[in-house]
């Protein structure tokens, strides 16, 4: 009685699924084809199989999901703060070398109340967003070219991987000499950091496309551009999104490197400026405060923009 046991185990889900797939409607539809008897029997067996096989998804509410995913990092941060506080209280280093969490917090509050923090975050995010958008516009077609055409890949591929491993801070001196202390210099550094990363993301996304999908596409009649549009690009999307995420990380890092090294009236107050300024006035708490802000922006963009986007795409495909 193995069949009955199996059916018994899944009764609750089966009932739910049966309601969802409308077995009654499915059974009725067979009346049009062939004699009623065997066709009806087949339809009923099929509806039964469908109902038993259907997977039920447990939708967790958004709030619970956020709370669930939030508490481990919150716990980790609390732990780090505790260790930090303990080190501070132990007075191993003088407090101008290692300020306590509360001093950094006070410094952070002061930066905000003076309005400096908002200006700095605003400038940096603006530069980061514009630079990232430009990297996207350049990196995506570049990645498609490299991924799709063998000679381009053989020539440009290694250069891209090489550029990816080059610390983008290396571009700051030449960019400064070329553009002067203008925003265009920041953008140049961001582009050189993020474009290779995005392009490599596109290439690996394309490489991960199962050949089966391309064959199916061809059999369905997709050739050339229509194959790219209907099969290749959607199939490469998850890899592309992962590349974008990494591209943003590279863009943000490159930007901060440039902002820390180069200061000018044209560039205005930025997070890099805050950090450099803290160093110049030997203000360790201020330096930590700036780092907290830099981290906060990076993490927020990732969590608000890229994580939900990736999650949506993967979930729609049943990959998570």
């Amino acid at each position, binding site marked *: 009685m193995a069949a009955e046991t199996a059916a018994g185990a899944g009764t609750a889900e089966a009932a739910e699924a049966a309601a969802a*797939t*409308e077995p009654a*409607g*499915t059974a009725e*539809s*067979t009346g049009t*084809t*062939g004699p009623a008897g*065997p*066709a009806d029997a*087949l*339809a009923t*067996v*099929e*509806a039964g*199989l*469908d109902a038993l*096989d*259907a*997977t039920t*998804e447990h939708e967790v509410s958004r709030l619970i999901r956020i709370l669930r995913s939030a508490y481990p990092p919150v716990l980790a941060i609390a732990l780090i703060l505790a260790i930090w506080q303990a080190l501070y209280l132990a007075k191993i280093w003088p407090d101008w070398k290692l300020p306590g969490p509360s001093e950094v917090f006070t410094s952070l509050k002061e930066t905000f109340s003076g309005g400096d923090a908002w200006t700095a975050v605003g400038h940096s995010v603006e530069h980061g967003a514009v630079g990232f958008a430009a990297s996207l516009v350049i990196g995506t077609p570049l990645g498609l070219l490299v991924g799709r055409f063998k000679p381009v890949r053989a020539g440009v591929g290694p250069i891209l991987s090489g550029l990816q491993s080059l610390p983008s801070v290396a571009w700051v001196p030449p960019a400064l000499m070329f553009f002067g202390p203008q925003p265009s210099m920041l953008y140049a550094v961001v582009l050189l950091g993020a474009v290779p990363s995005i392009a490599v993301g596109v290439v690996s996304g394309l490489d991960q496309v199962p050949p*089966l*999908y391309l*064959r*199916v596409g*061809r*059999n*369905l*009649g*997709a050739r050339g551009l*229509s194959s790219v549009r*209907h*099969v290749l690009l*959607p*199939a490469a*999307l998850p890899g592309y999104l992962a590349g974008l995420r990494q591209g943003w990380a590279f863009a943000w890092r490159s930007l901060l490197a440039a902002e820390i090294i180069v200061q000018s009236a044209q560039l205005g107050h930025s997070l890099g400026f805050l950090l450099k300024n803290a160093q110049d006035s030997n203000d360790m708490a201020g330096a930590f405060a700036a780092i907290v802000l830099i981290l906060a922006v990076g993490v927020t963009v990732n969590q608000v923009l890229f994580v939900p986007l990736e999650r949506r*795409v993967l979930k*729609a*495909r*049943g*990959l998570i």
Partner: protein
Amino acid sequence: MTAAVETETGSTTTVSAEAAVRLTKVTKTFRDGGAPVLEGIDLSVAPGEFVCLLGASGCGKSTLLNLIADLDKPSGGTVDVPSGRAALMFQESALFPWLSAGANIDLALRLRGRSGKRERRTEAERLLDLVRLRGAYDKRPHQLSGGMRQRVALARALAQDSKVLLMDEPFAALDAITRDVLHEELIRLWETTGLAVVFVTHNVREAVRLGQRVVLLSSRPGRVAHEWHVDIPQPRRVEDKAVADLSVEITDHLRQEISRHGR
């Protein structure tokens, strides 16, 4: 009494003028100078005929389907599908996971040049209804069971509106009872649509359960070794004695074929 008429290959191939698929002396070699995967295949499938291709590993069954589907070119000989493109169905459903079940069918209609969003929607719903998946239009492939996915894939293949349906071990990954139900479903659809079906399998009983003709391919190189006309009337069942008897006979031939490689 035998339910099947056995014929030696070559002697019976009366090449009809209006075959749905006609292969003439087809040879396929993948590497220059390498051993041929397929050699001298002569095979013709009549319109509306259900042919099962049977063989052990390395007989080039899938290669043969790729040639008929125009996904690959023969090294020698000719492949002719007079009605144009043949629809192909794979072992895995190969539905695009980024599209819903209905959108997968819609894409097939679109790539076939069907315009009119609403007309396509109606047609996709009709095809889903045909494979008894009414109401599954918006379901994602991963939300469906293996059997349901293959039925959507079947509906998508039907959306291609070709006269020939090629199936590459489409039910191999399914459990026995689902496979059994899908066999019945496939025969029902074949009878309603009048498609010519070329069904590749390594399962002898499945071949006898479904086919009007079973073609046994030898391995390395793939050649037509034998063929049987299956005269058992549908509806058949895998459990039928006539099916079992013929399966035994065919299996013996298949074993002989395989044994040649063991010596």
